[in-house]
């Protein structure tokens, strides 16, 4: 067994071997040409800085091969894809090794070969098993696609663009899966034929090949094995080489593009929008970065973003998937390889470089529908970052003044008064008047915690009571805290995400100027939106502020024994994770620890934590008019809570959520059955 190996190109006439090498050159040429066109496209994207590339590659490879992103909330797809990925990788690496041994080593070093002995046997066994895994993965994927009737794989559009070209997607999907399957299957068939013809002693290390050989014997083909082998080999070689050529022009492009995209994905995508200067404004095609152009190619149409998008779920004309595909189709038509297929896919799109993507390629109503909840980014298995692109395109709409009238009023109010209510900034601290003990003015003396209250908590009459409850809890705990009173402005988180970057900068300047006059150890916020931008996007002379959400602060005090509950609650409650606290900043445990500590029984909704459904108010949606005839995400969410047995309290940890869900419960007529409570109200009751 020590000399076990197998002759390469066995049973083949010389002309076929020559032909094979000719085809290798042709297919490699087509492969390189396709990638050159893609590369040219990527190079037209704007440059961005790259950091920690080796570490990024390692982490992306780990995520990929552990199926961490693909298997996230979809074990079936994750497992199937892993089988295909491992099998494909093994076969690819195997082919490279063989080619290295045969075409390079043997020629250069006088016939030296390592393709023998133990290595050969291990190689055989590994490829055999992983190859079988690939076939199994492909079958599972085909079954899933054909019979599972998954909503996420439904390519129907949610906007008014033509549906017909989507047939090409379906054809492409099946070609890809089918091609790989035929490739693998014929490979095993060839092996079986070889074993059937030669009966090598190493056949035991090719268990799958042996099974195929037995099968051939069973159907009585073993005698013609040699003759069939030649024809089949030619077929197998041809489709393998054609597959190589096919990669850069098809869905298979994701093999490379998705991997590269995972390497360059931004951990802070959406939560920390690019700083001015290296601003991502997706105004025109030329404004997209090379990374974004790669991201467009990385999309496999898996539809997870389409499924989780709250705007899509409420019937708005936004599907993150279609947004990416539309941009990809337009980019391919304008700066990629233009083919009859890309032309058909881009039907109805402008045939020229437009001054703005927004309005020409992506309809404004699609862009305005986004709540920036980040569910799409979180769900995407290949690391596509939809939100920054949407915000970038919104910026151009804002510059052109194309926006909802209510939003315009809100922005004008924010510019003039620093709040969206259009109320005097001098009234910002007015809510404190209902308190028995005054709140310190942080501008007048040092405080440990500077409470950044936020617009809604300061001005909305219903939320002012929640703010007072928060103040009473802080006071009862003896916290040393203060507020900015009329020096506070809207933190700008959603102003920025609406696309009004200039106004955001103005608000941030005003706030940082006010903060600079104060002495404090940490900022505490009640509003997750303010929390996000203060924590991620504000800096104090280059260093980040220390920012806590009040649930984090209270959870710390709970752990330290400073917060104790003397009047434990007993009701069953559910908790809604605010997008900007949960998905954006990973704060899932602190609010839950607090709820449990109050004695209430916490029952999570089916969609919770990173998978929580957005209330529909983020990204400036709270300032825009609802589109009639759509079921609001907030109402869907209340319905979701109603499915939980005996849960009558809907706990939130965001002032805007109180407004949104109280309205939703009222609209559904269930305000008695499902009471909306700010977490701090529970805390106050139980303290």
């Amino acid at each position, binding site marked *: 067994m020590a000399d076990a190996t197998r002759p390469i190109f066995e049973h083949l006439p010389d002309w076929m071997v020559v032909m094979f090498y000719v085809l290798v050159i042709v297919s490699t040429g087509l492969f390189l040409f396709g990638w050159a066109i893609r590369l040219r496209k990527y190079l037209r994207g704007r440059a961005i800085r790259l950091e920690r590339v080796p570490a990024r590659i390692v982490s992306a490879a780990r995520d990929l091969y552990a199926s961490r992103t693909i298997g996230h909330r979809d074990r079936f797809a994750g497992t199937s894809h892993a089988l295909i990925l491992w099998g494909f990788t093994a076969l690819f690496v195997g082919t490279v090794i063989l080619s290295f041994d045969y075409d390079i080593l043997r020629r250069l070093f006088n016939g030296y070969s390592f393709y023998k002995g133990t290595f050969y046997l291990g190689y055989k066994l590994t490829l055999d098993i992983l190859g079988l895994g690939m076939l199994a993965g492909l079958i599972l994927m085909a079954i899933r696609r054909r019979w599972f009737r998954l909503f996420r794989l439904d390519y129907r559009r949610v906007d008014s663009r033509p549906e017909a070209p989507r047939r090409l997607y379906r054809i492409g999907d099946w070609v890809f899966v089918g091609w790989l399957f035929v490739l693998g299957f014929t490979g095993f068939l060839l092996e079986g034929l070889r074993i059937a013809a030669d009966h090598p002693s190493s056949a035991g290390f090719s268990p799958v090949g042996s099974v195929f050989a037995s099968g051939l014997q069973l159907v009585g083909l073993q005698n013609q094995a040699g003759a069939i082998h030649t024809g089949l080999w030619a077929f197998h070689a041809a489709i393998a080489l054609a597959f190589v050529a096919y990669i850069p022009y098809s869905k298979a492009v994701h093999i490379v593009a998705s991997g590269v995209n995972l390497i360059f994905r931004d951990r802070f995508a959406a939560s920390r929008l690019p700083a001015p200067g290296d601003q991502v404004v997706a105004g025109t095609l030329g404004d997209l970065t090379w990374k974004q152009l790669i991201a467009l190619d990385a999309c496999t149409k898996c539809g997870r973003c389409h499924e989780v998008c709250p705007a899509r779920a409420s019937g708005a004309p936004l599907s993150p998937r279609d947004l990416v595909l539309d941009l990809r189709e337009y980019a391919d038509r304008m700066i990629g390889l233009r083919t009859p297929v890309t032309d058909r896919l881009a039907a109805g799109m402008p045939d020229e470089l437009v001054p703005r993507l927004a309005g020409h390629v992506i309809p404004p109503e699609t862009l305005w529908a986004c709540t920036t909840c980040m569910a799409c980014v979180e769900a995407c298995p290949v690391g596509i970052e939809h939100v920054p692109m949407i915000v970038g395109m919104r910026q151009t709409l804002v510059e052109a003044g194309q926006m909802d009238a209510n939003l315009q009023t809100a922005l004008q109010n924010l510019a003039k008064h620093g709040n969206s209510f259009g109320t005097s900034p001098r009234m910002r601290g007015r809510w404190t008047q209902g308190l028995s003990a005054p709140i310190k003015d942080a501008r007048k003396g040092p405080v440990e915690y500077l409470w950044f209250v936020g617009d809604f908590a300061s001005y909305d009459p219903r939320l002012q009571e929640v703010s007072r409850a928060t103040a009473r809890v802080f006071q009862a705990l003896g916290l040393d805290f203060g507020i900015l009173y009329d020096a506070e402005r809207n933190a700008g988180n959603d102003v920025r995400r609406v696309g009004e970057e200039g106004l955001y900068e103005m608000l941030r300047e005003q706030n940082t100027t006010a903060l600079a006059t104060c002495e404090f150890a940490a900022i505490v916020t009640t509003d997750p939106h303010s929390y996000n931008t203060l924590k991620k996007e504000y800096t104090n002379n280059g260093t980040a502020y220390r920012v806590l959400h009040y649930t984090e602060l209270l959870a710390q005090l709970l752990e330290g024994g400073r917060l104790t509950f003397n009047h434990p609650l007993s009701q069953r409650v559910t908790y809604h994770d605010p997008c900007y606290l949960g998905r954006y900043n990973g704060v899932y445990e602190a609010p839950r620890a607090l709820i449990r500590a109050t004695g209430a029984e916490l029952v999570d909704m089916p969609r919770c934590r990173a998978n929580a459904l957005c209330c529909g108010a983020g990204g400036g949606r709270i300032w825009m*008019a609802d589109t*009639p005839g759509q079921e609001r995400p907030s109402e869907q969410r209340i319905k979701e809570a109603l499915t939980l047995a005996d849960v009558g309290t809907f706990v939130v940890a965001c002032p805007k959520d109180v407004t949104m869900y109280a309205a939703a419960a009222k609209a559904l007529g269930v305000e008695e059955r499902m009471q909306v409570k700010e977490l701090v109200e529970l805390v106050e009751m139980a303290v």
Partner: protein
Amino acid sequence: MAGIVVIAEALNGTLNEVSLELLSKGRELATSLGQPLIAVLAGEGLDALAPPLQSADRVVLLDDPALGKFTPDAHEQAIAAVIAPMEPRLVMIGNTTAGMDLAAGLAARLHWPLAAYCTGVRMEASDLIGVAQLYGGKLFAEVELGSQSVIISVIPGSFPAVAPGGTGVIERAAVPAGKSRTRFKELIALEAADVDIKKAQALVSVGRGIGGPENLDIVQDLARAIGAEVAASRPVVDSGWLPKARQVGKSGLTVKPKLYFAVGISGAPEHLQGMKDAEFIVAVNTDAAAPIFEVAHLGIVADALEFVPALTERVRAGA
């Protein structure tokens, strides 16, 4: 000469109510000053329009085809020519569209001071004092009008109207020949079918407090009785009881009618945002603590289904 001059207004062949309001206040001032009250009316074919103004001591008609339709230029020229020689103590003009042009236009032509947006005027000893509404009604100014000829424009509805008619002398003044640089082309009437609640002077707005769409009838009856349009809060529109075009509030329309009748609306801030600037707000709600009562001028704690029909009946009986 002296006197109180009231510039009456009859744009489309009917006398504007404000003219009679000005005459009643004018009479009061004229009496205390011991000066004559003079009504001036410009237009064409004024014979039938003059008698209701006869509570004035003199009714001066500027009756000319050139004044048949209102144009600021022609009317100002004619009125200036007739009131300048009178050197009146006070000229009162209704703060209507035409009044806005006339009051400031005459003030500029005659170099007489003008106090606009007055809701009151009175004598204090020998001083003439005007009260003007400023800053969107947030403040009122008490203004000394001086001892020279002065013009005030008065917000309609500030004074009770005088009964039409009287014994004043009707005279016709010569209309000076002049060329108007502004010409009337045509009158465009309101399009009947279109509902624009933003333009409505009065709105009856319904919230979910009325229970269900089957109760909309009683609200529509009230709206018809008081000449209002029906509007709604978001839940009502969301529920499909009324079309979106009638929605008041943050996600609907912002309205500033003279009268806003909130029926069964608790007053979510999103709603208040859209109607808080209405001039006069009446709220009917079963909940005495409803926030709507914080912006309303008049509040009624009652069941809308009981109160609204009663009010409708009362309005119809009294009309």
